[in-house]
């Protein structure tokens, strides 16, 4: 009797497993981007800032792209990172 019960359980398990596999096969893998859960988020920069950014990228071109920049704006950006915070005041 116990052998019979075991066989039934095994068959039932196989049926369930095959059902799981079929379900997995049919499952479409889809990744939602998700909505930002925070309260605040940066928006697009202003038109003036965007234009300033374009003026700064243009000098990186040697070709026709540089023509788009006025003579005043065509300066080589030096970066203006000043020693501050963690590294301020250190003696090298």
């Amino acid at each position, binding site marked *: 009797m116990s052998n019979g019960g075991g066989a039934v359980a095994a068959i039932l398990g196989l049926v369930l497993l095959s059902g799981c596999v079929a379900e997995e096969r049919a499952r479409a893998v889809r*990744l939602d981007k*998700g909505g930002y859960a925070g309260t605040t*988020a940066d928006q*697009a920069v202003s038109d*003036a800032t965007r234009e300033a950014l374009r003026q700064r990228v243009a000098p*990186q071109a040697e070709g026709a*792209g540089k023509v788009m920049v006025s003579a005043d704006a065509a300066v080589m*950006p030096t970066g203006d990172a000043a020693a501050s*915070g963690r*590294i301020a005041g250190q003696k090298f």
Partner: protein
Amino acid sequence: MARMKFLCDAERCIHCSGCVTACKNEHEVPWGINRRRVVTLNDGKPGQRSLSVACMHCSDAPCMAVCPVDCFYQTGDGIVLHNKDLCIGCGYCLYACPFGAPQYPSTSNFGGRGKMDKCTFCAGGPEADNSKAELEKYGRNRIAEGKLPLCAEMCATKALLAGDGDMVSTIYRERVMARGFGSGAAGWGHAYRDQERTRERKGAGAKE
């Protein structure tokens, strides 16, 4: 509407790591974290190239898709940013990112890791622009000041381009058209190939 993008010109990159240093200094990035790094392809073989890699601010960012707490957002200019107050440091974004951009600070001696840190395109985070909180969590916000990411602006060979994707692609297209395909006009190939040719010519002349 602009879409901010990085592009590294492999023909120009000389693996000086100036971009890595500039980024760490500008944002006071803690020990153990490199928001940007330079990788070498075909190391020691013909065709060796170096590339500066950081967050590529994907248009359809996989990190955003897998984040279980939805701490990522994309600005109107296509910059992918995240909120460290929401981040739980699970690491899913690191597994999803094809560039290995997300970084985690070590917070204890037993491998504990803190909240994710990555390149912000020098655009800070959700805090008020240029506020102390933003500086401490994400680094400086140069974009709000009308400045491009420092890594690109500091690049000595102008290999690393950053900015409006349309302009970046225009600049790169101009370069490729000017130099043709193969070795770059300002790269190692150009610098040494001509010298080698001169040497070969001299050698050939000596034999004659």
